[in-house]
């Protein structure tokens, strides 16, 4: 009897060990798949041009150099681009988070006639691919009239908002920026998860609805806020779809990155039909990508702890 029990236990133990092993291999393998491109970029970025063709160099360069970084920083006008991108992303993030929190709370707790119908509109903004409305939005911003109000003020002329930050400010102020529908959805789900008693208690203690929102609900919504700000910041930072449509000349990271190959060939041999080494160009481009995501990675290292926690408590789930 006892021997059998012992054998059973040891069988269980074996199974557990085997599963741990499989799990370890899986996780390490998949982590490697994710980290591999970054490692490769780092290895490429610190390589000298000669090492590119050396058959013995795969990961660790023989001739260590920072020339690629210098080149990429120069061509991308990195510091200006960094400043602009940071400003743009921070601005849209803050405005989007606030307007979406307002709308989310309105939809979740302050029901009015037709609010459910309007929420269908929110879902629609999530589902319609942005390309569908791209051209009218573009033309609208090119001759911006605000329903004929601006021509009255300026004397018959519409304003061209392209190549300014106004499209971003306006859309994020009105909770219609990049993926804003998703953020409204997250906030709504979160606020629905807060017990009604909290609100009622605040009301009995004499707080109006506005005060309840700013003093009680918003401080409670920090996890949702964190999730939304992080998503919004990162997606704005990487976005090339809207950025290249609204801004064509501004020095913003995603534009600099997408025009890097062109600028590079121009820089290397004064012409588009250059005979510059394509591998070398690719090398500098990799360095450029690395430089563009570096601030994000640094930021991520600091906030990743709150990330899972934030999503957990946003209540998308419940």
């Amino acid at each position: 009897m006892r021997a059998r029990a012992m054998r059973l236990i040891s069988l269980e133990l074996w199974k557990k060990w085997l599963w741990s092993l499989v799990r370890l291999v899986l996780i390490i393998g998949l982590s490697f798949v994710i980290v591999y491109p970054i490692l490769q970029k780092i290895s490429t970025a610190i390589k000298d041009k000669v090492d590119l063709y050396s058959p013995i160099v795969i990961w660790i360069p023989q001739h260590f150099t920072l020339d690629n970084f210098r080149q990429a920083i120069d061509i991308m006008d990195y510091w200006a681009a960094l400043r602009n991108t940071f400003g743009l992303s921070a601005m849209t993030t803050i405005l989007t988070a606030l307007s979406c929190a307002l709308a989310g709370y309105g939809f979740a707790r302050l029901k009015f006639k037709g609010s459910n119908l309007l929420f269908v509109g929110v879902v629609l903004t999530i589902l319609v691919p942005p390309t569908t409305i791209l051209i009218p939005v573009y033309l609208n911003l090119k001759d911006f009239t605000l329903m004929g109000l601006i021509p009255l003020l300026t004397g018959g002329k519409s304003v061209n908002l392209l190549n300014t930050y106004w499209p971003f400010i306006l859309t994020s102020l009105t909770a219609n920026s990049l993926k804003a529908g998703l953020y409204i959805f997250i906030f709504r789900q979160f606020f629905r998860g807060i017990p009604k008693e909290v609100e009622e208690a605040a009301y009995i203690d004499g707080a109006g609805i506005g005060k309840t929102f700013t003093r009680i609900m918003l401080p409670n919504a920090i996890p949702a806020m964190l999730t939304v700000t992080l998503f919004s910041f990162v997606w704005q930072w990487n976005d090339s779809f809207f950025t290249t449509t609204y801004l064509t000349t501004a020095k913003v990271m995603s534009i600099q990155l997408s025009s890097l190959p062109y600028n590079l060939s121009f820089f290397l041999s004064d012409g588009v039909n250059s005979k510059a080494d394509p591998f070398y160009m690719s090398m500098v481009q990799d360095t450029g990508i690395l430089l563009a995501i570096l601030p994000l990675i640094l930021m991520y290292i600091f906030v990743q702890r709150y990330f899972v926690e934030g999503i957990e408590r946003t209540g998308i789930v419940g």
Partner: protein
Amino acid sequence: MRAALLKLKPSLRTYAEKKSLYGFLYVVPWLLGFLFFFLAPLLTSLRYSFSTVTANSDGVTASFAGFKNFKEALTVNTSFNRVLTESIIDIVVNVPLIVIFSLFLAVLLNQKFIGRTAARAIFFLPVILASGIILSLESTSLVQAINDANAGATTFNALQSFELENMMLEAGMSESIVNYLTSAVNRIYQVVSQSGVQILIFLAGIQTISPQLYEASKMEGATGYEAFWKITFPMVSPLILVNVVYTIVDSVSVNAMTDLIRDTGFKSFNFGLSSAMAWIYFVVVALILAISSYVISKRVFYYE
């Protein structure tokens, strides 16, 4: 402003009335944006798709042209049909893979093991890195290609899935399933990099399942495998719907199709044709969404 509104008729408003007034006020910013930057453009785009649009220095004029643009997109344009079918096939192939993979990983990352925090941090990295411009540039990296060739990685990869394929075929599995699985193995980076948010959502869902359920099932002698299919899977099934919708929306927002639509609009300045393409695309995507959410929502289990 608010104070003035309240002072106007302080005694006449009940709490509920005030609530609905504030609700409307809170939603107004979004509503304005929705009308200006979404609904109006959406209708304009629909109008453009049925007209010949000419843009000159005076502005844009659209004259009604019936179904001409749609006909041109479907029959004349050389790349539209091909790109459309390719993106649809991509979606249909990738979505189940991504959802299953992310559920599996979420279960894995929920277990206790050494280095769990680090593993989680790495698995959410794609949320940050694999979006927008970086993803599109990454696929064209030459250095990566040459490095892979140098390291013999490509031959190794091909060999690996080739072996796998043979093994499964010999085991008597149907060829199409085998092809699907091996192609999934070969595209592992694409799948991993698109499943960051989905893993997060599943992980959050798994953590809301009460531990008592697992304890009770363990007492009754359920294995881990049974616990997954009888507890975890039904409990997170609403999230499968969420994740399928999210994955579809995510994968349609930027791909070859949207590039084609944009190029038609901004490079050849054929706004009418571009709008028609965008609307065909939207209708197709809406159909996929409707079908998949209908099929899934019939099987979803709700706890309440």
